[in-house]
């Protein structure tokens, strides 16, 4: 019999293994040598600035980059780098300065503002900025009436152009000065080019022509966004001509990426344990900044027993140990206890809950209230505490476990922890199927009003399903936004005192902002504005 002609399997397999090995080695060698950047120039006299910086993040753009519709953190932040409004925040401060506005006057009844705008600003296609463009943009936002439109819609009654360089704004009410400026500084109010902007929402991968240091280079939804410098920007050129923002699915893969140099900066959100580890053991730099996006709190539905009883809520406020949470979960460094829904650094902030309940748990006081409310060891308060595991921090289950422990330390409460994914969670909240849950708040605009009205004003807190209605608080909130600053601070403090005593919502903590970057990256500014300004970033080429 002639021997069979089948190639020996052994040979085939060996060949396959060898081929894979060869490819692997080759890849490794070539990869190591291939610099991910453009080929380095001949040894320069002064260090060259890198042409591209890569930022890694676990956030992603949830909907569009149209300023009239975008509402998620990353989308808004990118728009903040591609556009500008009449006012903007000065980096490293909480101060609002002129951006596209040059000067403004306020009428004596505080209902009309006349704002002079820059004459040297141009859109990306060279069209000059005019007052008409500003008015047109605001009209577009209000007409399209998307999610954040109310920010402008509730502020402005009417706007008109007076000549080419002045915008006259008629407010709906005589709002306080910084309040108006902070709203006009939001992305929703950014002027867009009337010549090229359609009267409908611009979908990915597109955006609008705005006035800012960067413009959109390319966008692959779910994977990356590339920004390139805008040559027609009137102001200072961005320090780095190209920025790539790469999306990561979880904190672990982001950490690995910044460790092995795949990204230059990791911003939002690495786990506290990883940041601490990198701070202590690696050459990467960790930059910290005050954080308010989000602030975290516990909320009750006051229509549900037993949380309709103020004493129960106050007892819980006495039992909560914020410091334990901050020290354990956030390793003492990465978050701060929060004693008021108005965060530290904002107008009128006071540590109302600390003054009322102390910063350490007071079990005796809590027990007294609970017993008064009718609970005992044999008849404990049985409650469910709800949380959502992924949206805010991966440590959420741990935080819930700690809170349960803290509440049960009273001996009179039995806590059952429950969780649901974000979509279910929100639905349960809206359908009022839960009575006590953890939540977070990202500010719409940076003014104390945004930390008070949506929670405590009975005309504005329906979305929260807290059912808190205190006429005095309503009145005070309506007043503070119209008062001059000094008086406003006092009113805000009064509000915080009342709501600390009523405790329909218990503020818990605010996390700091943290950026982890390669050692040669400079210009990372993390301030109260919560805006990560890509145009300040730069890094020197290494070697």
């Amino acid at each position, binding site marked *: 019999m002639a021997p069979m002609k089948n190639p020996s399997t052994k040979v085939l397999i060996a060949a396959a293994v060898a081929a894979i090995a060869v490819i692997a080695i080759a890849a490794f060698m070539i990869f190591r040598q291939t610099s991910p950047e453009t080929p380095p120039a001949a040894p320069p006299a002064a260090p060259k600035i890198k042409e591209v910086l890569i930022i890694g993040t676990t956030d992603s753009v949830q909907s569009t980059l149209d300023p009239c519709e975008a509402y998620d953190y990353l989308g808004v932040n990118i728009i903040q780098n591609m556009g500008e409004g009449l006012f903007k925040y000065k980096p490293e401060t909480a101060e609002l300065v002129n951006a596209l506005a040059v000067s403004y006057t306020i009428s004596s009844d505080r209902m009309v503002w006349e704002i002079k705008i820059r004459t040297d600003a141009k859109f990306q296609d060279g069209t000059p900025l005019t007052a008409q463009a500003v008015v047109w943009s605001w009209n577009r936002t209000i007409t399209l009436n998307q999610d954040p439109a109310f920010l402008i819609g509730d502020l402005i009654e009417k706007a008109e152009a007076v000549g080419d360089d002045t915008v006259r704004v008629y407010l709906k009410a005589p709002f306080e000065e910084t309040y108006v400026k902070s709203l006009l500084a939001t992305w929703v109010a950014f002027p867009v080019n009337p010549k090229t902007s359609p009267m409908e929402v611009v979908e990915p991968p597109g955006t609008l022509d705005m006035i800012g240091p960067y413009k959109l280079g390319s966008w692959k939804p779910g994977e990356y966004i590339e920004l390139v410098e805008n040559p027609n920007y009137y102001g200072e050129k961005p320090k780095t001509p190209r920025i790539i923002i790469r999306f990561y699915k979880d904190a*672990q893969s982001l950490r690995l990426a910044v460790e092995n140099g795949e990204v230059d900066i990791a911003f939002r959100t690495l786990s506290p*344990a990883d940041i601490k580890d990198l701070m202590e053991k690696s050459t990467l730099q960790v930059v910290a900044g005050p954080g308010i996006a989000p602030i975290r709190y516990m909320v009750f539905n006051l229509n549900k027993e037993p949380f309709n009883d103020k004493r129960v809520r106050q007892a819980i406020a006495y039992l909560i140990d914020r410091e334990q949470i901050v020290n354990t*979960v956030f390793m003492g460094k990465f978050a701060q206890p929060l004693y008021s829904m108005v965060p530290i650094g904002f107008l009128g902030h006071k540590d109302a809950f600390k003054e009322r309940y102390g910063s350490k748990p007071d079990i005796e006081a809590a027990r007294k209230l609970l017993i008064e409310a009718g609970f005992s060891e044999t008849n404990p308060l049985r409650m469910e505490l709800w949380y959502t595991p992924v949206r805010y921090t*991966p*440590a959420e*289950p741990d935080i819930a*476990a700690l809170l349960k422990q803290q509440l049960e330390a009273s001996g009179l409460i039995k806590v059952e922890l429950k969780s649901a994914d974000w979509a279910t969670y929100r639905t349960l909240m809206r359908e009022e199927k839960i009575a006590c849950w953890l939540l977070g708040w990202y500010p719409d605009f940076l003014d104390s009003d945004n930390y008070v009205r949506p929670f405590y004003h009975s005309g504005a807190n329906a979305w929260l399903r807290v059912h808190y209605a205190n006429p005095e608080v309503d009145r005070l909130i309506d007043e503070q936004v119209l008062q001059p600053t000094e008086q406003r601070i006092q009113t805000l403090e009064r509000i915080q005192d009342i709501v600390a005593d009523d405790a329909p919502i218990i503020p818990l903590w605010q996390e700091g902002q943290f950026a982890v970057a390669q050692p040669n990256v400079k210009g990372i500014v993390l301030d109260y504005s919560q805006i990560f300004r890509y145009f300040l970033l730069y890094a020197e080429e290494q070697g």
Partner: protein
Amino acid sequence: MRLPKGFAEWGLVLGTALVTAFALLALVGEFLVGRLAVSNIIHVDGKAYEVPPLLPPGSKLAIGGREYVFIMGTDQLGRDVFARVVSGARFVLTVAFLSTAISAVLGTVLGLLSGYIGGFLDRALSLVMDSMYAFPGLILAIAVAALLGVGVLNISLAIAIVYIPSYYRMVRGVVLSLKSAPFVEAAVVAGASSLSIVTRHILPNVIPQIVALLPVSFADAIITEAGLTFLGLGIEPPTPDWGFDLNKGRQFFLAGYWWIGAFPGLMIILSVLGFLLVGESLNELLNPRKVEA
């Protein structure tokens, strides 16, 4: 009694030992370690002490005059990892057991019916089962888990649904091939009722296959449960659970706190291994291959 000989026999012994050990752990483990697994507060003489978090394995701590040794360290909330490992068996193994049982029973029943009765029922059921099989398993489990919420029964159901088609297909295949076998035909001719044919002739031939599939199914269920907790759907804290702790451990692994996840992970590997060994060895012993003379 003689010593086990050869791979199959050793495998069976080892596998059974592992499975029994874990079954015991699942049943009584929790009682042995008490509160240490769910809280970092130790009460000695009426005073409460807090155990610090992230202690490495082998740490010793003097609390209220007694010395406590944390042989597997403490987790990120200060809870004893050893205690969590011991009591963590219950949830995982219960879920694995329940889901395997549910999918095996349902799949087998449906497969028997479908294969034996045939006709439209068979075609319709096959279609549905093929579609479910084509559905990415983990996604199906995720969706069902998101729907039902957490808890032993719900998670077991979610996982069971994914594996029903496997049992269905296998059983149906056996039934189909047996339906035309001579001894079955003989029984039909002799006037035996369908029920007795199925139970006396077909079922016995199906059972070895089911038994062979059970351990793999069990192993899959454990892994799927770990996967579900990885994605945030699992149990409520502070209930200890290997899958949950494995996932937690992953978040701390890179920072150097390897023990939080490594020990639960080891438990998962060993328990899965135990079942696989039992399954494989049984298979080899019950269906011996011809050996060279």
